[in-house]
């Protein structure tokens, strides 16, 4: 069933993909193929492979139960929140919190998770920002502090 649903979604995406390719403006360059034909061919290819899977599904997928699924969603929310927290909170605070959340999802105890997160984020900051000179945000909330 999962195979059928996935191929259905992919076919729908590929149809939209082709429709968008057709509406690509032809350029003034004299290029025999233009910008739209390769995407159209790719779309046709995906539709073909999608139909092959749709008519003959290959395997069944065991999806996680409700409890595991909620942990997965929490993990995903953690990834998204981490990205948006990076600039306002700064690398060290955001990383400590994200690390602690992930660590607790993998059954670390809260206190140890927070502690490991703090140590890890400071170590990363020292390695990547101080030693390797990569840009990591210090955080808007700390703007006036330093």
């Amino acid at each position: 069933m999962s195979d059928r649903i996935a191929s259905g979604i992919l076919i729908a995406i590929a149809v939209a993909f082709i429709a968008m390719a057709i509406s690509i403006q032809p350029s003034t360059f004299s290029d025999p193929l233009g910008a739209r034909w390769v995407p159209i061919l790719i779309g046709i290819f995906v539709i073909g492979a999608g139909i092959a899977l749709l008519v003959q599904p290959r395997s069944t997928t065991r999806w996680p139960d409700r409890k595991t699924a909620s942990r997965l969603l929490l993990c995903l929310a953690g990834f998204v929140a981490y990205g948006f927290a990076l600039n306002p909170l700064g690398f060290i605070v955001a990383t400590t919190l994200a690390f602690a959340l992930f660590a607790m999802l993998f059954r670390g105890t809260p206190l140890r998770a927070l502690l490991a997160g703090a140590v890890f984020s400071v170590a990363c900051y020292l390695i990547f920002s101080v030693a390797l000179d990569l840009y990591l945000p210090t955080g808007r909330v700390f703007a006036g502090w330093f």
Partner: protein
Amino acid sequence: MELLGPLLGGFQTALTPQNLLFAFLGVFLGTMIGMLPGIGPINGIAILIPITFALDVNPTTMMILFAGIYYGSQYGNSISAILLNVPGTASSVATTLDGYQMAKRGRAGPALAMSAIASFVGGTLSIFGLAFLAPLLAQWAIRFGPAEYFVLIIFTFTTISALTGKFFVKGLLATGIGLMLATIGLDPGTGVPRYTFGLLPLYDGIDFVSATIGLFAVAEVFLMLEVTRAGGEVRTAIGRAMISVKEFWSSFWVMIRSAVSGFLVGVLPGAGATIAAFLAYSNEQRWVDKEGTFGEGDIRGVAAPEAANNAAVSGALIPLLTLGVPGSGTTAVILAALLALNLNPGPLFISQQPDLFWGLVASMYIGNVMLLILNLPLVGLFIRILLIPRWVLVPGVAVIGYVAVFSVNSSVFDLMVMTSLGVLGYLMRKMNIPVAPVILALVLGPLMETNLRRALALAQGSWTVLFESPITWVLWAMVIASVLLPILTRRTPVAAMGPSAESAEEEDAPTLND
């Protein structure tokens, strides 16, 4: 052909302090990356790309580092295979069969030693192959025009679709997904924006670092959340990591044969180290296993896959360096890094960049010696890394992946692209759709389109140009063969290897043997 002169020059390049340091860093990190389930050479290299760019090291040093990670991981992956029955990367799945049995019988020390020695034999023998075959192939490939390149890339797509994963049609779908992602951004021919939805960050296309870390590292975090069991207990009491002279000679020809076959399999696009290891294992089982002891802790069952998967790495570098057309996910990421530095691997690459090529070859000899030392007397130290609890390890990898993606453009948008692709990678892996073809198609898609359009432009728009030269006929025949074989036999090589190969979905995917 003159080999000694350029090779000596290569040693001059490889022996500079900076290159020695990066070779050591590469093999050291490679051993660790290979050993830890959940992170393999492909995301290891992707994480290091922004860091090496920021350090502004020269391309030769960068290649020495990345190659070190690639072949170093083939040493490390057997450590967890033997001690935990969990392959560090998919290419050591075959090593678990006899390696873990040996460890269970208290022979972990000899198993680790055999794996290190076989890796060394496979690694060093195959570098000869690389040094010898690459210049020859380059000379031959000078005749490749845009039409030939286009068909060659199609061949790479069909073989990787057929050889990774259990179902050919799912491999094709993965390639299609990668090609669709590759069209996002400004069209390479005319500069028209495609599929950007008016979002400025998409004009440059999907960044391959974000894509690789998302599809492999982030997806792996999700997958590991589902797995509660984490293999057996770590055996830290391994005894002395040594084998007897008798054991060495019993495996001698096994290693030589496996190195040769592994190297040749590695050259083929799509096949790579996992298939090389399984092929060597089943060949040796047929050839030398007269008593039927393979699978019950036979030391030759460790020697065969370990010699083969290391040899396959050197083989995989050949199409990357001489044609500019990589055959696996990891080599595709290395190509993307080279392209980002405005280096275009191809038939003239070795003659234009002799320092890079011969320096790399020489550094691989040095790196293999370093690895032998790291993996024989010092293996006891590495084993302690396996004691790091998962609740520290997994968040650590996730955070380092985040830093790497963020440091490319300092863009939160890239982080969201990475996270979305992490979800995509999770769904694909759950459904037995291989992920490596997505990366390969993402990197090769623009090259495919450019070559097709160039070929058609040169031929005034006539499609027959794709079928005119004898080289294209051979390549089309190979395309047809790679499409027909899995359809006619109704199974892909990975599926044919039986249930033990199930987690060997793609060459570089980090796997948990759950």
